[in-house]
C-alpha cells in the first residue's frame, strides 16, 4: 500500500483533493490493466467482458464424457484447471481493485462530523469477493443457484445500518462482485468509477440540502426560543430543566449563554447582530479580505464567528452581522459575490428571529394604515 500511496502522490503531485487522488488511482489501474492486456490479452478479455458474450476465445477443448484417462482431461482452454484457477484469482483481484476506492470514498465522504462505520468498510471489501465467488460458481446452473441461495439465506446479512446511504455502498459492492463473477469486470469498473465520482461531487457540493426547509441552526434555535420566550410564558417549565440538567451541564450552558448575551447586547437595546453570513471558499485568507471589505462598507457591524476548515471540500466562514435597513440582504450578497469573485464558492445570509419579528410588526402597522 505505501507503494500505491507514493504512486498516487506522484500522479496527483501530493494533492489531498479526493477527486484528484481518485483520478490518480484509476490512472494507475488503467496503466496496469493496459500492461497486463498487452501480455495476457485472452485472460484480460475473459475477465473484462466475457459476460457480454462477444469475446472470441479461439479453439476450446471440450470435456470428454466417456474417457476416464487423464490424457483426455482438458489440459488448457477456458475449462482447464489452470484457466479456472487463473480466472478466479484475476476476478477476485479485479473485484478488490475496484472496491478499494469505493471504501476510500465511503470513509471520506461523510457528513460534517460523521464517523464511518469500520464494519461497513470491511464488509465492502469482503462482500464483492464473496459475491464474485458465488456468481462464478453459480453461472449457468439453476440448480446451483437455488442451492447457494438456500445456503446464503441461512446466514442472512441482517446488520442494521446506521446511515441508509451505507446500504448503497453495500449494493455497489454486490454489483462489483457480480460483475467480477460473470467475468464482466469492465462493466463493474465503469459503474464503480461513475459511482465514486458522483458520490464525491455530491458530498463536495453538499447536494440535497433543502433550501426551503429551516437550516440546522434554525431548528436548534426553536427550543431556545421556547426557553427564552419574550412574553414570559415559558413553554419549558423550570422543573423540567432541573430534572434534565446536571450541575456541570447547567454551568456550561450558563457560560455559553453569557457569551451569547455579550454578542447579542444588553437588555433594552436592539440586538447587536441580526444575521449570519455563511461563505464557502477554498481560499480562506484571500476571501476573508474581500468579504470583510464589503461588510465594513455595507453593514452596521460585523464579527467573525468561526472558520471551519474542511479537507477535500470548501472551508466555511461564518460572520455575525447587523444589517443596515437601507441595504437589503440580496444587495449585500451581490456585493460579496462581486468583490470576492473567483474566491468564494457560495455565500448565504440567514436572518434571525429579531428581524423577522420587526418585519411582522411593520406589516401589521401597514395593515392598520391601509
Amino acid at each position: 500500500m505505501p507503494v500505491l500511496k507514493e504512486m498516487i502522490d506522484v500522479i496527483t503531485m501530493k494533492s489531498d483533493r479526493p477527486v484528484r487522488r481518485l483520478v490518480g488511482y484509476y490512472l494507475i489501474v488503467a496503466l496496469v490493466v493496459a500492461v497486463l492486456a498487452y501480455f495476457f490479452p485472452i485472460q484480460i478479455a475473459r475477465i473484462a467482458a466475457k459476460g457480454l458474450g462477444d469475446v472470441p476465445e479461439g479453439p476450446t477443448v471440450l470435456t470428454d464424457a466417456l474417457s476416464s484417462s487423464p490424457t483426455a482431461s482438458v489440459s488448457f482452454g477456458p475449462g482447464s484447471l489452470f484457466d479456472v484457477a487463473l480466472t478466479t484469482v484475476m476476478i477476485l483481484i479485479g473485484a478488490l481493485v475496484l472496491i478499494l476506492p469505493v471504501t476510500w470514498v465511503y470513509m471520506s465522504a461523510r457528513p460534517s462530523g460523521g464517523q464511518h462505520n469500520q464494519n461497513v468498510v470491511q464488509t465492502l471489501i469482503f462482500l464483492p469477493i464473496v459475491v464474485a465467488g458465488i456468481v462464478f460458481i453459480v453461472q449457468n446452473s439453476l440448480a446451483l443457484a437455488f442451492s447457494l441461495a438456500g445456503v446464503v439465506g441461512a446466514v442472512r446479512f441482517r446488520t442494521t445500518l446506521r446511515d441508509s446511504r451505507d446500504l448503497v455502498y453495500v449494493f455497489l459492492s454486490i454489483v462489483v462482485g457480480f460483475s467480477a463473477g460473470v467475468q464482466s469486470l469492465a462493466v463493474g469498473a465503469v459503474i464503480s468509477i461513475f459511482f465514486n465520482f458522483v458520490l464525491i461531487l455530491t458530498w463536495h457540493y453538499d447536494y440535497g440540502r433543502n433550501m426551503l426547509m429551516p437550516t440546522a441552526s434554525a431548528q436548534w434555535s426553536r427550543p431556545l426560543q421556547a426557553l427564552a420566550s419574550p412574553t414570559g410564558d415559558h413553554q419549558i417549565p423550570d422543573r423540567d430543566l432541573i430534572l434534565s440538567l446536571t450541575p456541570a451541564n447547567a454551568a456550561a450552558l450558563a457560560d455559553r449563554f453569557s457569551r451569547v448575551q455579550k454578542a447579542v447586547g444588553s437588555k433594552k437595546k436592539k440586538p447587536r447582530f441580526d444575521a449570519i453570513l455563511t461563505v464557502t471558499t477554498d481560499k480562506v485568507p484571500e476571501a476573508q479580505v474581500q468579504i470583510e471589505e464589503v461588510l465594513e462598507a455595507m453593514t452596521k457591524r460585523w464579527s467573525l464567528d468561526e472558520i471551519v476548515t474542511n479537507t477535500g471540500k470548501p472551508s466555511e466562514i461564518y460572520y455575525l452581522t447587523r444589517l443596515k435597513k437601507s441595504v437589503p440582504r440580496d444587495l449585500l450578497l451581490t456585493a460579496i459575490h462581486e468583490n470576492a469573485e473567483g474566491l468564494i464558492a457560495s455565500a448565504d445570509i440567514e436572518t434571525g428571529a429579531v428581524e423577522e419579528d420587526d418585519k411582522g410588526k411593520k406589516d401589521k402597522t401597514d395593515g392598520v394604515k391601509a
Partner: protein
Amino acid sequence: MTSRRWLVLLLCAMPFVAACDDTPKARAAELQKLAAARKDSLARRIAAAAATPDKAIPLAMWIMPPLLREISGLALTSRGTVLTHDDNSGRVSEIDPKTGILVKSFSLLGNQKEDFEAITIAGNEIYLLASDGKLFKFREGADGQQVSFMMFDTGLGKLCEFESLAYQADSTRLLMACKRSLGESAPKDLIIYRLPLPLKRESITAIQVPLHDVIGSNLWKNFRPSDMTIDPFTKNIVIIASHEKGLVVLTPDGDVVRSEPLPGDHQQAEGVAITNDSLLVISDEANVKPAAITLYKWRPQ
C-alpha cells in the same frame, strides 16, 4: 525505497512471466497433440464397436460449454466438422466431432434473438431455421465475427411449428419437417416441406408420409421431428424425434426405410448429422444431464 525496488522487480519480471505463458504457437501445437490423441482413442473405440455391431455403443461424448447448453441443430461441413447453434441466439459454433474441439464461434449481425431450431449448409451458404418457419441465410464467418444475413419468411409458420432442416444437394432443395401442425383439422401424418433454391414461396411443395408407416412396430403414439439430415451414402432422409426418442429413415420420395429407437440414452436429442466416415452425431440439449454431442457408428442399412 524497498517498496520501489519491489515494484521495479515486478515490472521487470512481467515480460518473463509473459514469455512463459502459452503463446498462440504453443497452444496450437498442444491442441494438435491433443487432437491426435483423441483421434487415436476414437479409432480404438470404433474398432471395439465394430466387434459388437448389434450394440449401439457411444464412441465419444463431448460436453458442451455453457454458451451451447441449449444446443439445437447440427450441420456437417465439407471439412468434416459440424456447425451447431444455441436455441435462443444466432450464434453458430463449429465443432470437430472427432476431437471434441470447439474450433470457432461467430454470430449473426446484431446478435439476433430468435427461437432457432435447426441449421443446414447449402454450398457456400448456411441456413438457420426459426420455429416459426423463418429462414436466415448467411455465409460462414471467422472466430468472433458477426456476419450479415438475409431473412426469408416461408409463410409456413401459420401451418406448422418447425425444428428440423436439411439440404438435399441432388435436388438443391431445403427440407423442413413439420413438428406440430397448428390447424385443428391438420393431419397427424409426417409432413415434409420441400423448398427449392433460390427460395420462393410459390415453389414450395410437400410430401406426406402416413403416421402408421413412420411408427412401424414401435410403441410411439406420434412422431414429432426434432432434426433431420441426409445420409451421405444413400441420400436417404434421416429424422430423429426427441420426444419419442426415435429415428426414422425415409427415401428421398418419402417411403419409410426403417424406424427404430434412438441409440444410447438421450434426454433431449435436438440435432443429428452423419459424417462421410459413417459416424452418427446426435446433439442433446442440457436437461438433467449437461448438453453434449454423442457419436455412434452409422449403419446405413
